[in-house]
């Protein structure tokens, strides 16, 4: 059973659209939840992290965690072509991190 499930996409949206990216997980021991952005052949870059259920907002990005459903989401408002990248969810237990497969997003001008 995979620890973290993420729809790989690809996802293609017009500029200005609201994007919703999702991950589910099976291990209720996960303590921290993160979203990373990865451009082609680059290292992942942390966008947001949270450790509690609910919403956390940072500019155009909102991270949502529902621990009872074991479900996390990242919303991107007013999407821009520069948001085109692969988005990875990640979760942490102790000092070990588990990543989703990543969702490839293209924002069309």
């Amino acid at each position, binding site marked *: 059973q995979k620890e973290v499930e993420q729809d790989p996409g690809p996802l293609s949206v017009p500029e200005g659209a609201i994007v919703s990216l999702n991950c589910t997980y099976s291990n209720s021991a996960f303590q921290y939840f993160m979203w990373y952005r990865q451009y082609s*052949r*680059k*290292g992942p870059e*942390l966008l947001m992290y949270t450790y509690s259920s609910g919403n956390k907002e940072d500019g155009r990005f909102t991270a949502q965690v529902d621990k009872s459903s074991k479900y996390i989401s990242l919303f991107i408002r007013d999407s821009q072509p520069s948001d085109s990248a692969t988005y990875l969810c990640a979760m942490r237990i102790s*000092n070990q*991190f588990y*990543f989703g497969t990543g969702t490839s997003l293209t924002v069309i001008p």
Partner: protein
Amino acid sequence: EPEVTQTPSHQVTQMGQEVILRCVPISNHLYFYWYRQILGQKVEFLVSFYNNEISEKSEIFDDQFSVERPDGSNFTLKIRSTKLEDSAMYFCASRYSTDTQYFGPGTRLTVL
């Protein structure tokens, strides 16, 4: 802004050879990690390192792999006898105490 650096950016080796991948984490960070990403697949945790010892390791991190922090600044990953399936991007990461884990640009390892 401080960043994690990795060398080399690309390493080509013959099957069965030993390789050492090098990383310089951010200087005041305390936790260090190696990950790999096979082309088109997910980022996979290999090992975490804290207080000069391995903190956790995955099933991938078998006896062929070892890590060292030889001089207080470098953090290395050694693969003793490379296999074709070791071909991947290898990322080093470090963090201080929060979950802001900073990744290096990666080393692309090609095993022929």
